[in-house]
């Protein structure tokens, strides 16, 4: 049986994670490589790194982070932010990422989805979509770009279907309404996309407690749930969340943190 995935998201600026973190013991706070390794050992199923720097220097530091992460964790990870061309995708994949995520750039130039998918395979191409509730749109949700600041004319469901057709292999749907509220994911939109698309749907925005993950994986029919602050600030650990989900009858992955002699 395919297991539901828990994905932790890390925002990286100039080579450092921007959200603080309260780990136990002597952990180098803010180092994305150390954080990645920590979550890997805790049993996270996948990681996403977003580059939120704008400078070329920041980009170089970011790719260096990606390369160092790839040496430390043996699970898939995705990289987003600042990817606007096939060359950017190649650089990121060559640095060791499994997948690249494109958001605003795909709205501005949908062909990049197709180019990326035919070049690297659909499994590498993740569409990130920020959506805002809007009753005037056919699905009830409008696509917004530039971190939620700029509304577009696109309907969220239509755009997701188009991206799937163009070759996106997965979609991360981030609700601008729910983001940062810690009051739960946007269930209606997530479920609508899960029922309409063939590709996996990852829910993002609004998670504050394990109950919210259970809701979006069951009612929202999401394939995966993305979390950030609920683990970054030490409120919850990955095992705590997974134990809760298991008690709710949701199949998730458990495996020992190490079996080899190496580590």
């Amino acid at each position, binding site marked *: *049986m*395919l*297991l539901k*995935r828990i994905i932790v998201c890390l925002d990286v600026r100039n080579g450092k994670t921007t959200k603080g973190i309260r780990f136990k013991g002597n952990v180098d706070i803010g180092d994305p490589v150390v954080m990645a390794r920590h979550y*890997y050992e805790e*049993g996270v*199923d996948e990681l996403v790194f977003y580059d939120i720097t704008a400078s070329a220097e920041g980009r170089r530091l970011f790719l260096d982070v990606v390369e160092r992460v*790839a*040496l430390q964790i*043996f*699970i*898939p990870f995705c990289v987003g932010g600042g990817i606007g061309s096939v060359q950017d995708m190649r650089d990121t*994949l*060559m640095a*060791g990422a*499994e997948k690249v995520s494109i958001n605003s750039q795909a709205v501005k130039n949908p062909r990049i989805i197709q180019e990326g998918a035919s070049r690297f*395979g*659909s*499994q590498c191409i993740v569409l990130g979509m920020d959506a805002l509730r809007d009753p005037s749109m056919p699905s009830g949700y409008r696509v917004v770009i530039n971190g939620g600041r700029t509304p577009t004319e696109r309907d969220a469901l239509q755009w997701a279907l188009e991206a799937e057709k163009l070759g996106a*292999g*997965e979609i991360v749907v981030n609700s601008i309404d729910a983001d940062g509220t810690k009051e739960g994911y946007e269930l209606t939109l997530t479920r609508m996309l899960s029922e309409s698309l*063939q*590709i*996996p749907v990852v829910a993002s925005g609004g998670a504050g407690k394990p109950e919210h993950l259970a809701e979006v994986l069951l009612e929202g029919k999401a*394939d*995966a749930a993305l979390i950030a602050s609920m683990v970054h600030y030490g409120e919850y650990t990955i095992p705590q969340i997974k134990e809760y989900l298991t008690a709710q009858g949701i199949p998730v*992955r*458990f*495996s*020992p*943190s*190490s*079996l*080899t*002699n*190496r*580590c």
Partner: protein
Amino acid sequence: MVTIGIMDYKAGNIRSVLTAVQYLGAKGIISDDPAVLKRCDKLIIPGDGEAQAVMEVLTGSGLGEFLREYFQSGRPILGICIGCQIVLERSEERSTPCLGFIPGEVVRFPRQPGLKVPHMGWNQVHHDQSHPIFEGVPEDSPCYFVHSYYPVPRYRENEAAWTEYGVSFVSALKKDNLVALQFHPEKSAAPGLKMIENFIFHC
């Protein structure tokens, strides 16, 4: 030190395989040169990709013929993902003739409502400990899959593990010195690393 040849045939992210091999304390060499690979103690056929494109590269480059010789030499080979498919006789993916080291074929997941294809994510691998690659790997360990086609070996003796996804399919193959995994052990956390370690030191 054991030297592991990692065959480069332009299929997907093979660097992560090298990373895992080095992490586990072996020497890994990525190469597309049969002369270089021939000197390696063991060989990994990694990668994602599409059967026809991969077979064209293998045939055109002489790597297909090299693989046949390496297999016949009796030295250990580990196939991963597409490397688990091309060792069969043919693939339904654009009706592609494959290497034929193991009798059987590769078919697509059935088109049925609610079954998303590709099969992507973590799924349990049931194995019967019949192959040393699974030594010390817990039964039903979750492993990371990304694929739309799966192997169907003709004989039960070539089956080494099974996974459920719409159908029950064979997720690992074995024959003589060849073992092949449909999932990505290099991305399957501790159980996957254990399999690579077993391949390096115990196969």
